[in-house]
């Protein structure tokens, strides 16, 4: 078999491909560095939210560096080693290099992962404080209902057979349970600022999810389970609550609000709701 002298390829294709990759990296970095409204998260309203943001930023730094180096490395190799008449350099690889970059990757990835667990633990492992405000969150197709225990501090028993949205009992509070008489059921969540709240998240039908971007935490509402989720909001304001778990044809309409108010406003809210019972 006679060797055929290879013509050097044209430079247009490798140049264009390298350029596209470089431009893609540049645009990506630019968007991350700027603050376009469609690319940024809202300010967090909890301290754990700030920690989550910190972990995110750390991950971005690591991932971003790897991204830039590998994409630019690829672009460089594409252009520099295009066929322009040279011989390829024969090598089967280098065990040393494999060991080095494997170790570096392990340290980097696992280190990054381990660092993020403090924030996770604070949300999930640490129990709520004893005087946290308990609010039950119930999802069903396609509304949220929030239940407060009322002055007696106890939630009434629920009976699915007594669910009737039309007569004002969407959760099915058992009429035979006296502790349920003062329960407050409202369609939006109102909490006082700087006071820990423990949500008890449940569902009446299919899987839903409770998510507020500013809290940085979300939790599936799993039928058959009551799942606690605690947080302490530190900024007064109104924030949107969305359902992020596909729950049927009204999924994108399932929406509510988190109202973080002052202590005085919160007490007023409770009084007003108690009077309306």
């Amino acid at each position, binding site marked *: 078999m006679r*060797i055929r002298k290879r013509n050097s390829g044209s430079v247009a*294709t490798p140049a264009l*491909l390298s350029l596209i990759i470089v431009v*893609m990296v540049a*645009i990506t970095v630019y968007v991350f560095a700027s603050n*376009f409204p*469609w*690319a940024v998260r*809202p300010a967090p309203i909890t301290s754990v939210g700030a920690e*989550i943001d910190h972990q*995110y930023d750390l991950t*971005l730094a690591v*991932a971003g560096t*790897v991204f830039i180096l*590998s*994409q630019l490395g*690829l672009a460089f190799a594409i252009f520099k*080693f295009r*066929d322009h008449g040279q011989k390829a*350099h*024969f*090598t*089967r*690889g*280098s065990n040393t*290099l*494999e060991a080095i*970059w*494997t170790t570096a*990757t392990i340290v980097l*990835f*696992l280190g*990054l*992962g*381990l660092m993020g*667990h403090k924030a*996770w633990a604070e*949300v*999930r*492992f640490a129990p709520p404080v004893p005087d946290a405000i308990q609010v039950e969150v119930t999802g069903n197709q396609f509304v949220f209902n929030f239940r407060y225990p009322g002055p007696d501090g106890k939630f009434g028993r629920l009976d*699915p057979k007594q669910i009737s949205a039309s007569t004002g009992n969407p959760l099915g509070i058992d009429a035979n349970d006296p502790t349920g008489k003062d329960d407050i059921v409202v369609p939006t969540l109102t909490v006082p600022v700087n006071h820990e709240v423990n949500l008890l998240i449940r569902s*009446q*039908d*299919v*899987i839903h*999810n409770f*998510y507020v*971007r500013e809290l940085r935490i*979300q939790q*599936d509402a*799993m039928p058959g389970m009551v799942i606690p989720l605690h947080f302490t909001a530190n900024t007064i304001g109104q924030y*949107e609550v*969305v359902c*992020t778990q*596909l*729950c*049927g*044809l*009204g999924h*994108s309409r399932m929406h509510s609000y988190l109202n973080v108010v002052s202590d005085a406003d919160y007490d007023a809210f409770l009084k007003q709701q108690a009077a309306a019972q």
Partner: protein
Amino acid sequence: MSSHAHTGGSTVHAPMAEPSGFIRKYIFSVDHKVIGIQYFLLALTAVVIGIVLSLLMRFHLVWPNATLPFVSGGQMSQEQYLALVTMHGTIMVFFVLTTAPQGGFGNYFLPIQIGAPDMAFPRLNMLSFWVTFLAFVCIIAAFVVPGGAPISGWTGYTPLSGLGEITGPGEGWGQTLWIVSISLFCLASLLGALNFIATTIDLRAPGMSLMRMPLTVWGWFVTAILGLLAFGVLLAGGILLLLDRSAGTSFFIPAGLVVNDQLQAHSGGSPLLWQHLFWFFGHPEVYIAILPGMGVASHVLSTFARKPVYGYRAMAYAICAIGFLGFMVWGHHMFVSGMSPYSGFAFSVLTMSIGVPSAIKTFNWLGTLWGGKIQFKTPMLFALGFVSLFVSGGLSGLFLAQPAVDNMLHATYYVVAHFHLVMGVAAIFGIFAATYFWFPKMFGKMMNEPLGKIHFWFTFVGAYCIFMPMHFIGIAGGIRRYADASAVAFLARLQPVHQFMTIAAFITGAAQLFFLFNFFYSLKFGPKASKNPWNATTLEWDTDSPPPIDNFGGHYPSVYRGPYEFSVPGAVDDFIPQWQEPAQVARVK
């Protein structure tokens, strides 16, 4: 698993007779090459449907009030959008990404690349294809049954998928057909996996030790092992779900549910159980989708850079590591599901670990290019694109693997961007690279280079235009599987980005016509292909284009060296094929 390192020449046998008759030759054929093409054409049909579905979705997201002629009622409803979401995901994941790389190219080229005349069990192979075809008919039928297609997503979470029509349109017949289709697909894949594994273990030619197998074969082999161990679990889950829907059992449905004011008569099942069963399959499934593409990328990069794969052994081990770890990370889909947070911690550590072999592969791909002599033919362009897209898509996984950060990003467009970049683009690029690379061998004709390049440029740029912005809107809180953004105030500012992505999607979708035209035109009118147009080294290039019925025309090759002997110092040619006897290699004096 013994290594079978033989010496000795190839054996000669009488050439096999071709089957007679159109039916036995092209329809009910047991020839792995015909079956491979059947799988490929099935996947091609599926991908066209899948792309149309996605374009309809993108159209609706930007123009929700537009009147569409083929939609009953004129405007697309919420449930119709969700049906598109469900069917797009299901068809693409199963009938494109699990079918083309493995059933298509794996079937065609695994036996040839190891020097075998066919798969170990050809009739089983034929059965696998036709059961897959039946599964495809079932899923398409879901569009036309009363109630239409299911709306529970490709993940089919219960109770939405388990209670029947009462949870929404499409949840009656549509969901049942979905389960039946997927169950059939599982059966077909199990049979296929059996064939692949037995063939790779027992039918390798003399001299083809494990460490001389092309990385494409490693990819198909490990993928088959994943399929063998994962599809049975999904099949089991599907059977239990069918029982819940039609036999009154409560595997996945808790007691006391009230849907549409009706109390459901179920007793204490667990929706989490479905998620565990589904994702125990579902995570290996995504590695099933990408591993063959990784094998093809290594193979094509090496061939067109005229250099051995950098770190061949590390690459083979990395494929095995990804496969192995792939079984241990499924909980990272369930961080916010109500699963124990301790499990979340464990799954997170394991998921970060799986980034390590993936990173090793990326470094080795760069190493393969480094110092090479790169020729930019279309297969190579797609392989290079694969590397770039895999890096982009893989790195966003680092965020999602950490439960603290996942709390913020779960079920947003960030996740959609991540899996589309790795599966919906990188894996697809693997399929394109394979198609352009092996088309000459399969059909005896060359595809058109300029058209191939045009296809590449549009698709590469287009894919980034569609899926990079998705990361950003995910960070800003864009929720996935939302039919419209009108109810939530903070979604309004994301609309311009949606418009950009939709326009990019339409252009990129249209650009696939270049590929379709090139493919079918070249079948008929392409220039004739030689045995080895790419000067490649693996066994498929030692036979005619297309190969005869028994792959090597009665002559069976022996293998004398590894699969990527390019630019070996001292050799006259810049490649030494696996089948060339050492005495025949022209050496520089």
